[in-house]
């Protein structure tokens, strides 16, 4: 009898001790903010273009965490949808074309001699990637431009172009090897040469 009582008491004591530890840990190591919103935000491309219908990626991340669809972000495209579906355990769906198509990445360039210095583009840029002052020529900091397109519309003289980033040896990517079955012996295309190159 006493053994049972002792056992129960010990267990109770243990439960109490661990409960205290857990309670303490919950207070001490509390995670700030809403981690799921952070995680969703981390998967969004941060183009901040607003094509999803929200004023930026973070608001959309919040909307998704509140149940909005995951297929509204054209710059992220299919890969972002897949990553989001994976994270949130939802169904992979095709991109909602209502919000736009997935397009190759571009960067804004201002034709500087045509710029009248109205500062409208600066006000539109969500990441402050445009430099300039009133009545002065404006220019885009290419490395900071997300290609969101938002500065093109406000420009009264239409001097902003969205151009694809030039491919240089630094950002060039190795092509995927040519899909195997199509390869024939007499094919001396570039892919073929690349294949042989390492042999």
């Amino acid at each position: 009898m006493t053994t049972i009582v002792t056992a129960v008491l010990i267990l109770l004591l243990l439960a109490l001790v661990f409960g205290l530890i857990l309670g303490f840990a919950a207070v001490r190591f509390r995670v700030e903010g809403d981690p799921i919103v952070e995680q969703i935000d981390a998967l969004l491309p941060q183009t901040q273009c607003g094509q999803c219908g929200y004023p930026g990626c973070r608001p959309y991340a919040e909307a998704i965490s509140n149940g909005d669809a995951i297929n509204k972000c054209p710059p992220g495209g299919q890969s972002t949808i897949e990553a989001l579906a994976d994270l949130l355990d939802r169904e992979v769906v095709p991109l909602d074309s209502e919000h736009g198509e997935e397009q190759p990445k571009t960067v804004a360039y201002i034709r500087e001699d045509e710029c009248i210095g109205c500062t409208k583009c600066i006000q539109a840029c969500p990441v402050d990637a445009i430099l300039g002052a009133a009545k002065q020529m404006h220019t885009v900091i290419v490395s900071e431009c997300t290609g969101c397109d938002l500065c093109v519309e406000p420009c009264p003289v239409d001097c902003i172009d969205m151009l694809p980033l030039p491919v240089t040896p630094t950002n060039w990517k190795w092509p995927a090897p040519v899909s195997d079955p199509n390869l024939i012996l007499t094919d001396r295309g570039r892919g073929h040469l690349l294949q042989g190159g390492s042999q």
Partner: protein
Amino acid sequence: MTRLYSFHGGVHPPENKRQSLGAPIRQAPLPARLILPLQQHIGKPATPLVAVGDTVLKGQKIAEPSGHVSAAIHAPSSGSITYIGLQPVPHASGLESPCIVIETDGQEQWIERQPLTDYQQLDKQALIRHIRNAGIAGLGGAGFPTDIKLNLGRDHIVNTLIINAAECEPYITADDALMRERPDEILSGIEIIAHLLQPSHILIGIEDNKPNAIKALRDAIRARKLPIDLVVVPTRYPSGGEKQLIQLLTGIEVASGSIPADVGIVCQNVGTAAAIYRAVILGEPLISRIVTLTGFALGHRQNYEVLIGTPFSVLLESAEVDRSRMFRLVMGGPMMGISIEDDRIPVIKTTNCIIAATREEMPPSPPAQPCIRCGMCEQVCPASLLPQQLFWFAKGREFDKARHHNLFDCIECGACAYVCPSNIPLVQHYRFAKSEIRNEEAEQLKAAQARERFEARQARLAREEQEKEQRRKERAEAAAREQARKKAEAEQADAGEQDPEAELKKLKTAASIARTKLKKARDALKNAQEKGLDGTDKLEATVLQLEQSAQAAEQAWQNATGVQH
């Protein structure tokens, strides 16, 4: 004799080295144009110091390192700068990149050389700066700026210096020729490196297929009585891989993701050692290197001493290329090199070999078959990876998994593709996967940056809005205060007329003042009359006047009180 260890895997491809070793190193012709890419090394491209039209001397610095990991570039010959801009460069992409083009004048006129023969007396940092100024980047293949490897600081204690003389890749004999002909340059270079790093142990790792080079080095070491161990390793590709050579010589396996310096080892190539000797003892920056020209489409297969920037085409002509027989032009060796299509590209600091191969020599690869999971690739992989697994992940674009299977430990040696019975271009798949992963990482970095900027902008807008609000409030408050003040004033003015109490008081004061004045005037008059002064009539008039006004004041007050009561 040092004990030999071994590394996993490896293959024995046909060596094809003999062809290029028949003749001594030959000086390549001086080309009319030298093309110097600003990026010939790992790290940031160099920044030009010259402008179009400038004349330069041989050995003059024409571009300086931009940032910590970067290397300087020097004019390989005298002449004038004719162009700075895009030119095709030796890169797998076949793309163009910024270059400086020098039109040579044929004078080969040197700038004043600045040797540091007394380097042992010098501050180590000054010596490292000198090496950095000479633009030396690893000549073995990767092109990592050498000064960084020599300047490890206090967090890395170097106990072993390994000089890589393995040169394991078929066809290439540039290091072999250098060791045969200039062993003393190499040893002097090693002495300088050892002076900087102070290792307790110096090893030279060389494959046993280079008996002449071994002999030359051994004799030179003996003659100089240097504490250097020359370790002859069995010929097995890729024993010259940095981590593989370290494992062969020391038995230490450098962990995935760490560098040899983390385990107290620094590796340098023999060519780099010779370049350091030239920079320090002769005061000559890195402006030339030895390049193996080989392949059966060439009339002369041998090693050339080539100025950096010499176009491939010039070398091919000089080696009497038979273009009708040339089927493929390869930069680097047959295992790790890349096929190139444009022979206008220049030799850079990392170019060790050019192969002009005939069709029989390097036939087109047969079509790839499905993987049969034979496991041969796994057996030969020197990095102990699972190549077939990596292949599946790369093909299925499961890059995360590929990374977790240590894709980035793959040295792209090509051993797996060499043995694969299905002729799968495995290395291409890995290169593809690696560049996709790198690209994704760069994009993530950019996204994080964009997020930060977006948030900073949001914060700025909020702050501005708040400030505006604040100002508006302040303005409104100020206006309200102003109004209140004005109102109060007006009210006061009104009250002066209306308040009877105050009015009464005023009248009373006025009456008493008038009385006092009258009294004073009367006193003055009396005084004057008593003394018999003149002008009393004037005083009389004043008194009369005052009497009247005092009376009027009294009257007003009386009236007012009358009204009041």
